[in-house]
Structure formats: C-alpha cells, structure tokens
C-alpha cells in the first residue's frame, strides 16, 4: 500500500486526513482511488500539484509507477525563475 501524504493546504479535500494508505500501481490509479474516497479531489490534484514519489518530484506524474510502500506527497505547484 502506498503511503499518500497531503500538505495542510490540501487536507480540506480529505476531511482533514494528512496521510492515507492507497492500493495503486500508478499515480493515475492512485488519484482515481482517492477520488472515489473524496469525490472531486482528482480535479484539484491534477490541476494544482506536483507529486513527489519517494523523494523525487514530478511535474507530470500521472503515468509514473508507484511501488509497494512508496511514499507519495502531493505538493503545491511552484514556478522557477
């Protein structure tokens, strides 16, 4: 089960939960599973976040694979200069 973490700003979407275990093999599957738990969260996550999988940050993570016990963080988007 992947350990999915939400920044405090995203927890309004999860009923306050900071960490949720999700069974998924890709980020897409993971977001789909989350959307079933918290309807509407998928749109917000795909629009407003980068994803860190085991410490590595991805800007377009949808098809990235998620290993067993991976640590996944949804992060606010930021811009470089």
């Amino acid at each position, binding site marked *: 089960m992947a350990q999915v*973490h939400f*920044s*405090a*700003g995203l927890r*309004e979407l999860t009923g306050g939960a900071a960490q949720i275990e999700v069974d998924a093999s890709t980020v897409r599957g993971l977001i789909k599973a989350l959307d079933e738990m918290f309807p509407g969260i998928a749109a917000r996550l795909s629009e407003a976040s980068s994803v*860190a999988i*085991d*410490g*590595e*940050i*991805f*800007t*377009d993570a949808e098809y990235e694979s998620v290993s067993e016990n991976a*640590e996944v*963080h*949804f*992060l*606010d*988007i*930021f*811009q*470089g*200069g």
Partner: protein
Amino acid sequence: MAITEENPGYKWVGTRPIRPDGVEKVTGKARFGADLTLPGMLFGKVVRSPHAHARIVSIDTSAAESMEGVKAVITGADFPDLAANGAHPSEIDVANNAIARDKVLYEGHVVAAVAAITREQAEAAAKAVAVTYEALPHVLTVDEAMADDAPLLHEAMITKGVDPAPEEPSNIASKILHERGDLDQGFGEADEVVEREFTTKPVHQGYIEPHAAVADANSDGRAHIWCSSQGHFQMRAYTATVLGVSPGTLKVTAAEIGGGFGGKTVIYLEPLAVRLSQRAGRPVKLVMDRDEVFRATGPTSGTRIKVKMGVSKDGKITAAEVWMAYEAGAYAGSPVGAAGMTAIACYDIPNFVVEGYDVVCNKPRVAAYRAPGAPMAAFAVESVLDELARTIEMDPIDIRLTNAAVEGTQASYGPKFPRIGFVETLEAIKEHPNYTAELGPNQGRGVAAGFWFNAGMMSSATVHVNENGTATVVTGSPDIGGSRQSMALMAAEELGIPYESIKPIVADTETVGFNDVTGGSRVTLATGAAVVDACRLIVEDLRGRAAKTWDVEVDQVEWVDGQAQHVDGSQPPLSLNDLAAKSGRTGGPISANASLNSRGVGAGFSTQLCDVEVDPETGVTRVVRYLSAQDAGRAISPDYVEGQMQGGVVQGIGWALNEEYIHDTEGVMENPSFLDYRMPVASDLPMIDCAIVEVPNPAHPYGVRGVGEVGIVPPMAAVGNAIRDAVDVRMTELPMSPIKVLEALNENDG
C-alpha cells in the same frame, strides 16, 4: 574549491574553455531583441494607464489613426474575449495583463498600441489615443488589500484553500498552509523564543535589456516573431492564447537574451506586435523604454512576514511559526506557495506552522524572480535564527549544522530529501579563511543559508554529426548565462571529441522539439540530459557502423576517446571523422534526437558569509567581504557556475541595501529609472568569493543539480545579520537603506 566527492576524471566536464557564443558577444555581432530590422518595418508604441485602478469608459483612436505615418492602432477590443470563450482563469489573466479590457489594474497597464513608419510618429500617435477613465480606489500593499473594507480588484475573487470557502469576495486569492507536530508543545520545549516581523518591498529583476519583439504577420494567418525571452516555445503558447490562434500558426525565433532572471518567462509585447503587424500588413518592432520595464513588467512581491522560533539551550530548533502575505500585483499568482515550501526547508524542525496568503493589489503583476518567493522568507527566518544563535551564544554555522536537513530528513514541504549537500556548504564556509578573517571597527559578519528546489521539465535536443566528424548540438533553450558552453562540454565528453569541434545552437520553434523555459535552474540539468541522451544514441549508431565496417557483431565494438575500438584490438580504430566521412556507406547521415520530461531534480543549497562595515554617522552599509558556498551537484562549466553564484549574490545585496519600488499615494511609481532604482554598481562591491560544493545529484548523468537560483536566497539575511553583528541593530525592513539603519542606530542610542 571544495570538492566533496571525487572528480571522476572527466576530460571536458569541469573545464573552463571559451564560450561558443563568446566572440559574437564581445564584437557587437550578437543579435539581441531590439537589434533586428526588417524591410518595411514599422515602429510600435504602447499606450499605458496613468491610473493605478480605473474603469475604461471609452477609447477614441480616430485622432491617432489619422496622423501621418500611422498604419495601425489596436485596443483590447482587437483581441478575443477569452472569458466568453470559456478559457482557463490563468489564461484570461495572461490576456488581460497583455492588454486591458474593462479595467486597468495598475499604472502602466496596456490599453492600446500603435504602429507607424518612424519612432517619432509612433510616439506622437500613442499620445493622441484618447482614453477616458473612471478612477477607482486602489490598494498598494498587502495591509491595504487585506483590510476589511478594501476596494476589490476582482469582484468575484473567492479565496482558495480555505475550508469552508468564504462567501464574500476579497483581494486574497489563496491561502497556503504547512504544518507538522504540535506548536504549543514545541514552544514549551524551547529555552529561548524569538519573534520578529519583517517587511520587504517589490524589487525588479533588473535585466539590462528591455523587452523587445518584432512580428511579421502574413495574410494567410501565419506570423513570425523574433523576441528576447527565456523560452520561445512558451512565448508561442502564450501569444497564441491571447490571439486566439493555434500555436502552429506562429513561429518564434529566440533572439539573444539580455538577462531575464525569471522576468522574461512571461509575455508582454508579442501578441501586440503580431496584431499590429496583421492590421498594418508590415513587420512591426516593439521595444520598451526602461520606465515601461519598471512600471509594467516584473517585479517580485513586496511582503509582510512574521516569524516566531524556539530553540533549546543546545541549539535544537523546537518550533517555528511563520505567517506571510505576498503581493501578487494585479492578478493572482504571487510566489507565496514556494515561499511556504522553502521558508524552513533547510532545517529539520519537529513542530511548525507555515501559513501564507497570495494577495492582489494595484501594482504590476509579479513575475518570477530567481528562486521566486524564497528570498523574502529566508530573510525573515534566517534573521530570527541569527537572533536565536546570539541568545544562546552559539556559532551561527554550528546552530545551522545542529538543525540541518540531510538525506532522509522529512522536508518541511513533505517528502524525504534524497542526497543533498547543505551540510557541505556549511562546512565549506567554516573551512574558508574568510570565516576567521579579522574584522575592523564598525565591521560585522553575518551568515545565512537558503534552499531552492530547482526544476526539471521538458527539453529536446538534436545532434548532427557533420561530414568531418564535428557535431552540431541543437536545443531550444535560450542561453541566458553560458548554457551553450555546458551543452558543448557534456556533448564533447559523451562523443569523445574536442569541445571546439562542437557547435551548440539555440533553434527556433520549428526547428527543434519543444523546450520549456530557461528557468528554474533547469537547462544544464534537463536540456543537458536531452543532449546526453542524443549523444548516446549517436554513439550507439557509430558502434553499429563500425561493426558493419569490420563485419563483426556490435558487441565487439567499444566507443573510447572519440573512436570505435575493437574489444580485442584486432582492428585499427575508426575515429568519428573516419565514420562520418563514409557515413553514406553505413546508413546515411548521422543524427539523433532526444526528448524528455526530466526526472531526478536535485535540490540546491547555498550558505553565505557576509562582512559589512556600517558608517555610524551616515548609516551607509558597505559590503567589504563576501563568500558564497553552493552545492552545484556537478559544475559542468565552473566559470559560469561561479557567474551564477556571484550574480545572485549581488542581486541580493542590491535587494538588501538599496532596491525598492516607491509609489506615491496615487499608486504611481516614483522611481522608474536606473538613476532612482539604484542597483549595485562595480564601485559598491568587493570581489565575490565562491566555494563550489559538488555533491552529485545521483539522478543526473553528470550529477547536475542546477545553480541559477538558490544564490539569491541568503544574501538579504546575510547582510542583515552582518549589520546586526557590526552595530547591534536588527533590521527588519528591506531595503536596509542608510536612513533606516540610521534611524535604528538612533533608537538604540535613545
């Protein structure tokens, strides 16, 4: 130079040859944004709002249109209404910032543009465009904009990130929040607590080249744009959005770019130039004056930031509470999100709350500026940390070492850090002679640290091998500070041929695959990785050609030092030159493309040491010695790594001591010139000493992390901490100008 991991003995990577585009740039041949002239080209001029906030009642262009030499006049009505077309809100903001429709939201906001045969005719026509405004009340700072009865910039703006969503609109676009642990418990465990409040002013990126664009539109709907930007693919996309056309109808050629620092990742002139060219049927050049650059482009946010931190006697930070509000300017999108993620990211802190607000106000829309959002937060946090170190009488490096994030630390913004080099930058400072150099009267020493993510994103590269065994490396990343050199060095290393045999070029949007902007410190990392991938495809191809030539299996062929060698030495080696000359026999031209969405971004850290001398009579602060230690991962091109470090530091010194936007009560900028917006000059500064730390990024073929941005994060706090050390005053407002330092000194005496 501090090297923390063994240099693997590269032949080209890490050397200091002359940059490939250097001769053009020292002989005046390099073509920057304003340097292009086309046959029949017209000069354009933009009409800008004199009001900070006003409704546009009417625009009468008839007088301008009838003037001698005038060929086109355009207003917001000449562009599609994206809101009516259901576009994304961020696209609507881009369009409305390029040219106002119903309201102007800052002084300098574009309302119209003209094109005429001569510069003088265009300027006269711009003055003749008659705009009737209904002035509205305005807000200039986060305090004014967040007040309960503040006039609204956007009547429908509901704060995002608040649960439940507010029912009433406000100027607060969004709230961000990061928290961990138990704040009360953390402060309860502290032996000392320090709380301070800080303000910073908007500052401009200050690139010396004003924005410039030439557009040549054809009657078939296609157009060619030459412009100076940090990403011509991005300019194509934004321009297409504003014009309501397919990006494929636009070709954008990247002029040489005269500095950007984030400020040239956005569009201003390009869609106006295209529309004027379409209306006039002739090419049009638009170039900003410096005062337009100040009034309508950049800057980065002014801020208010409160920081409270607690520390145990042995120097462990037990809790941190950070509140911050960042000016976004006219449209949502200040870098407060990144500020929230970076503010305390250098440290492993068990209990914290970081809360931030993105606040619109009647100033130009902020644009990215080198590690956007991080420097202001670092000024506040690193100043408070300095106070804490003084309170418990701990060395400023040691308190940072005690709390430093290392591999495996759960970063304040979420994930665990992979291998990072923060500790190594702290140690590099401590080992440097500057750390123990003697200080004179009224001199003081300050330390500060900074973190920046760096970025990956999308890049493409093509490598062609020429018939004589030289190679052309084609990318689409504008070279803003020497990246052609780093591309050529990596290609030389991969192909095993001399650096001088490689010609790196920046191609237009129709000649190479997509490249994201030159920003986020990403080009050497991501575009470099694409170049490496393309070179490796070339090498695979060359091995196959050698195998064909020798009639052996390809696994019998190795590529060593720029030549194919048989593993048992049974064949005379074939050089790249040999293989290229006979490429027709082995399959035709030798060429490869690589495109990627970069993985494995490596975080950057910088620690800096500043010595100042403060004149107690005048309050003037002079930087007398400066050292920057930064983890580059791997310095592909050390000359230009140092250049990024030194440049970032000096921008930071300007931000610390002099630079600020000054507005009058009507919201009109009072200092839109380099005379009154005082950036550092050579006589203000000492040499900027550099310690390049190399803790390779394990996810990049050469260990690159990216070096462009993090260097600007620590300087404001480093200077402030040095002033504190020199004359015993804690400066909490930027810039720390002579008058403010003098006031603080007088308060101390009083």
